[in-house]
């Protein structure tokens, strides 16, 4: 496996709708913030990775590493663009970790960025799914529609997911209200969630994450180069491709109750990190709640509970404030927002904030091990990372 790779700097822009800032502005701002957080200069960085999912959909930027190199003036060094749908950011981290372990670089910069609000929603993801997809196989498929299929199957097999979906929305908005970087900083009531306009199946508007502008960044080094700094180890990180893109819903491999990509990526990441009882060994989770039903099935796919028990887990309060395993203390995609390529990096930034004890009022007391999980495409792929405090305290232990 090689030596542990650690984050020594973590930063995120505020997430939201920023008509006054472009893609390059977001990228430049977050790189300046993360290098300051790590106590390095850009000159110290010798390779970079950029996670952006959909270049030429919302803007004409992000289609190559150039979209990161240009706004920060990073010349003469390799900058690689990584695209893996909604897991683009986490997979960019995975690439950087692999390069550091292989000693092809010493200081790696990872940036995730997406500038989605320059076009209306009908011009962005809907266009991607409906108007630019396969001529017949993707016709009628929308993002909420993919997860609506899961919600209806869940209803048929395990019972009505509505109360649990409402609980997820309320929990994540409550966290988002407390997060100064969140896109939506307001709580929602059960009545508001359940009266929201319908999108697909039981999924309504307040069960869905927004499209968002934002960027997040990490500075990664090998642990031996951290020189006693505050650090967070990427102790396990894995990706799994499981389903096709246009053919995801025709796959006989899918049980339509969750995503095998998450299950296999989690198994691999847990093995790397030595996690055997994730609910007990992990202190805080950032997972892919693109829709509220997704958070429910993610609990099960990540092994935080048994099959069919996701509903009860959120309804028990275990994943909320003060619970045994707080989930999405950032507000999640649901309230913090979902600039697609930025999301995976943002998750690790938030986990770093937790294990470094700087999450403010959202701090999970004593958090030392966190989990980040991103699901990409129509469940096609997933990335899972286990992040563990590796600061001076660990070095001294």
């Amino acid at each position, binding site marked *: 496996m090689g030596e542990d790779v650690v984050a020594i700097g973590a930063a995120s822009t505020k997430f939201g709708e920023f008509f006054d800032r472009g893609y390059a502005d977001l990228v430049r701002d977050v790189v300046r913030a993360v290098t300051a957080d790590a106590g390095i200069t850009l000159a110290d960085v010798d390779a970079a990775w950029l996670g952006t999912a959909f270049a030429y959909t919302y803007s004409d930027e992000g289609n190559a590493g150039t979209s990161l190199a240009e706004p920060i003036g990073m010349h003469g060094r390799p900058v690689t663009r990584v695209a893996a749908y909604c897991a683009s950011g986490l997979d960019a981290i995975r690439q950087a970790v692999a390069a550091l372990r292989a000693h092809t670089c010493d200081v790696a910069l990872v940036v995730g960025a997406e500038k989605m609000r320059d076009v209306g929603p009908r011009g962005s993801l809907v266009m991607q799914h409906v108007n630019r997809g396969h*001529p017949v*196989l993707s*016709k009628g498929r929308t993002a909420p529609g993919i997860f609506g*299929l899961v919600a209806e199957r869940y209803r048929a097999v395990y019972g009505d997911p509505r109360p649990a979906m409402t609980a997820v929305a309320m929990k994540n908005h409550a966290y988002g209200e407390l997060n100064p970087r969140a896109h939506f900083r307001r709580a929602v009531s059960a009545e508001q969630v359940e009266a929201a306009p319908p*999108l*697909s199946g039981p999924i309504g508007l307040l069960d869905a994450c927004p499209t968002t502008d934002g960027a997040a960044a990490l500075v990664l080094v090998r642990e031996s180069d951290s020189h006693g700094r505050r650090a967070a180890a990427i102790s396990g990180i894995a990706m799994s491709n499981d389903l096709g893109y246009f053919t995801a819903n025709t796959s006989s491999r899918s049980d*339509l109750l969750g995503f095998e990509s998450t299950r296999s990526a989690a198994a691999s990441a847990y093995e790397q990190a030595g996690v055997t009882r994730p609910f007990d060994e992990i202190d805080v989770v950032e997972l892919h709640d693109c829709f509220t039903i997704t958070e429910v099935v993610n609990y099960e796919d990540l092994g935080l509970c048994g099959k069919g028990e996701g509903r009860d887990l959120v309804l028990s309060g275990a994943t909320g404030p003060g619970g045994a395993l707080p989930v999405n203390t950032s507000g999640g995609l649901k309230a913090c927002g979902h600039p697609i390529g930025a999301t995976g990096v943002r998750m690790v930034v938030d986990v770093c904030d937790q294990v470094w004890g700087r999450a403010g009022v959202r701090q999970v007391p004593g958090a030392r091990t966190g989990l980040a999980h991103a699901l990409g495409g129509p469940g096609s792929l997933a990335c899972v990372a286990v992040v563990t405090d590796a600061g001076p305290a660990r070095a001294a232990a």
Partner: protein
Amino acid sequence: MHEVGIADVSGYVPAYRLDDYLTRETASSPDVSVPGPDEDAFTLMWESLTGLPRVEAEGPVLLRVPDSDIETRALVAHARSNGVLGEPAAVIPLAPDAGAPDLLALAARLAQPGLGLLVDHRRPAGAGAPATASAAAAVRFGPPRVARVAAVAARHTLTFDRWRTGPAPDQQDARFVEEALVAVEGDALLADLLKAAGRTTADLAGVVVTCGTRLRGARWAKRWEVPSVWQAGGGTGGPGASAAHALLTALDRLRAAGPDGAVAVLDLGWGGGGAVLTAGTDAAEKPAEPAASAARGTKAYGLAAWHGRATEAPGPWTSPAELWREMPALLGPTGYRCSDCGGIGFPRAGVCELCGSFEVADRPLRRTGVVATHSVDHLFDSSDPVQMVVVDLDGGGRFFGQAVRDVPRRLAVGDRVRLVLRRLHTASGLPHYFWKVDLDG
């Protein structure tokens, strides 16, 4: 004329009905069968073909699909792709105003038995024009199991300058047309036919008429001394407009008449064409009814959509190469079977998604199955939320697509369903057809 038989027949009558508002607005009969919003001339033709026994090679295909916006060869190619049509020896398009007798007359003169297709896909020509009946009929000529074509006849005359192919503008004129057309041409044509068939009116169970005005059937039954005169499809179309209905009605009445029955078919307008059909060798057997399910509303229609004046959202750009490469298998529907693990999947692929083997071969898939899950999607660009459905197909493979429009109820997990070919959208100037999901039975 040598004797020609009808070996098999299959019909499709769309089950949709206009809602009260559209019935009033278009001055239509509430009983008239109209196509659903996702049905068109090709899908009606396809539905009628699904009821015929499958063959690898067809004789000449005689084809009247007057309201299709794809070329005749594309119609044939689409039907060939999913196996409802064998490889035709030749394709002979019939004129848009050809009636059922024209088809029978042509078939009777071919050296080789062929396949006949008559399709009426009717939308009103403009605001205020009433709905007229839509239907599709497919007949395979050959051994006379269903019927014999005992005689055909035609008259080509230029008698009245006030005949028209559309509905008459007022009742007085309609009566004039009826009197002139049916009395003069109908009498003569019927006499010609009976003489050619060696029959008398006493042999006829009735006469099926298509013409440009609504007939008073009892009046003409009395005049012609036959038990019944039926007007196929409501009688509001022009000559040939209800050709499919006329053929289906004639064969239906022939079956009801029993082993000694005979029925005449008259298509009147600028003269006319006619045929006499007599009972086939299987007349004692009760055949299947034409495919049609319970009546469905048309809430998805707005008035503009019904008249074909709604603005359709532009479909995606489609690569002609991709269509050429992929659509035949998608229209099959053709999937694959893995020779290593036995797994079956859709769409066609070069690798088994279940075990990773490259030892896969194309496999036609069943068109029935069970709903695994579904989702009513409100984001889809449509006047009515579209239900998306995942179907576990009988015999293996999984399908994902839209439910048909105005399905009587939303589909639920566990429902038995069937796949039907429907029009998805128009893109790059071409209609795109794909499978949709309908309740089975």
